[in-house]
């Protein structure tokens, strides 16, 4: 049926094409989110309140929030830096060309190899009987636990998170690195710039929007992750999503609307991260079409 867009009926039909998607998004994305956001500001009987948000200001929740922020900021920052270095090494470090394809494929796998199995892999490697722990102990006489390292701890968790954060960065930043044209570098060199000056004055500013975006994405990625932490540490390391998990499970019997507040806090921070990204990007992209 040919559609004439000038007839109102036809225009309505055009909009009908996206109704299934919009309905799906409404039911399974927007409404659940709104439910959480409004729930955070309501009492059980439905009246408006700030009491739930105030409930967040307990030492244990604040500690979990701080830990989550620290973990997400650290792994996002390290993921960005190390991922960029790895991508740069592979794409323009003078290494054999086939390494690039291998690295990209592996990054695709590793960025999706998150959650429970990742935790198992790290336990099997760095846990009390893990491969590296055993090798260090038997061959070098180093007791990893005695050095203060503990997999079930903040550094251990961060180390595990980097296993998916770095590859995610590699996947996103490699196309951006490809967008850096060879003649920019040569033009800079012919004007007297060193490699470092080129990176500081041209390459990094050009990459900046991608870097910011990936940072926000990595931050949200780490901030919302539950399964790895859960499988790695049980509930002993209480980060915000684990607190929320416990709230939902009803393991912790507190004010039921506190769960809303915790969930809202999570959206709030990932939202802030992305808001900062969007604003900064608008500024960073003023030189783009």
């Amino acid at each position, binding site marked *: 049926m040919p559609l004439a867009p000038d007839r109102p009926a036809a225009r309505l039909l055009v909009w009908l094409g996206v109704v299934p998607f919009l309905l799906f998004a409404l039911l399974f994305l927007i409404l659940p989110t709104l439910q959480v956001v409004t729930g955070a500001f309501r009492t059980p009987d439905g009246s408006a309140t700030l009491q739930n948000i105030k409930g967040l200001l307990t030492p244990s929740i604040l500690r979990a929030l701080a830990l989550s922020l620290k973990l997400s900021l650290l792994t996002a920052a390290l993921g960005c830096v190390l991922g960029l270095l790895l991508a740069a090494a592979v794409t323009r470090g003078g290494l054999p060309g086939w390494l690039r394809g291998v690295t990209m494929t592996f990054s695709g796998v590793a960025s999706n190899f998150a959650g429970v199995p990742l935790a198992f892999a790290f336990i099997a490697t760095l846990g009390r009987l893990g491969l590296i722990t055993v090798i260090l102990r038997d061959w070098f006489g180093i007791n990893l636990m005695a050095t203060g390292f503990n997999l079930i701890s903040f550094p251990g968790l961060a180390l595990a998170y980097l296993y998916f954060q770095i590859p995610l960065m590699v996947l996103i930043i490699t196309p951006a690195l490809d967008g850096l044209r060879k003649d920019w570098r*040569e033009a*800079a060199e012919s004007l*007297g710039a060193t490699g470092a000056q080129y990176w500081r*004055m041209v390459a990094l500013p*050009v990459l900046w929007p991608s870097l910011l975006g990936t940072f926000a994405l990595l931050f949200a990625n780490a901030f919302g992750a539950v399964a790895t932490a859960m499988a790695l540490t049980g509930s002993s390391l209480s980060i915000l999503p684990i607190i929320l998990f416990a709230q939902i499970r009803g393991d912790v019997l507190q004010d039921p609307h506190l769960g809303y507040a915790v969930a809202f806090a999570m959206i709030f921070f990932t939202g802030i991260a992305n808001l900062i990204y969007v604003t900064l990007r608008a500024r960073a992209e003023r*030189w783009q079409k």
Partner: protein
Amino acid sequence: MSFITLQNIQKSFGATQVVRDFTLGIEKGEFVSLLGPSGCGKTTVLRMMAGFETQTSGTIVLDGQDMGGLPANRRRIGMVFQSYALFPNLTVAENVAFGLKIAGTPRAEAARRVDEMLGMVGLSGFGARYPFQLSGGQQQRVALARAIAPRPRVLLLDEPLSALDAKIRISLRSEIRAIQRELGITTLFVTHDQEEAMSMSDRVVVMSGGRAEQVGAPSEIYNRPATRFVAEFIGSLNLVPGTVRDAATGAIETPAGVIALGRTLPQANGSAVSLAIRPEGLHIGQDGNVVLNARVADSEFLGSIIRLRVMAGGNTPLVIARFNREGHTVPEPGQELTVSANASDIIVLDGVA
């Protein structure tokens, strides 16, 4: 010793040799073009000069200084790319100031220099724009200003006009040349467009297969092509096969009859040669010292020029170009006429066409 000397440069990428035994001297303030078909190694020569490639053997000396081992960022050689290569994140003024900033030029002085450069390329007042807000021609002007702002010792341009519209291309030619003259900057210009090379340069280097076929002033290249390649590559040309009968008197037998050039030829008697002559070197009438009978095959009226295709001596095709003047008639196809040329305009090339 020249200001720039490229001595016996060879360059191979793996097994393929791209530049062969290339030698060239360039004087201070000279504008030299590298002209040749795509893939003949022009860019490679330029990039070795700039320091982006290292020659397999041979030396490059600039102003008495051996460039060997000197990295590109210490050569003080400006470069303009076909793709402009402006830094997209910097404004026009910041682009032009880039080299000055690197060199540590004081801010006020750099700003003055940027203004001066932008004025020179006709873009005063465009300093605050970003490259994407400029047309191709304007971007290339910025690239030129950026390259010359830090006062490089040499300016290299790699097909800087190839990406532009015909009209802008032609106006930029004379602008680049004027700026080059004004600054007296030694310039090496790469192009595959003979008109560009001929109209802009003090000297042209015609390249083929990684070799310099001929080096000379544009008129020399055009009028006295040294090799068959140059003769065929530059302008259009009539080629007539022949055999040397008497080298001492310059008698050559051709399908259109025996032609006597009246000069001594270096070729041996009996060797196969080609006679080359420009279309504008042939006249209708008998006022030259080489005269042939011909029949008009067809004619093209091109405004200021009339181009005739004739068959000389029955089966030798020739193209004749003559100015269109009031009162001259355009010969009809089938018409018989005599064609003449000055023996000195006829070039003898080795081998058969």
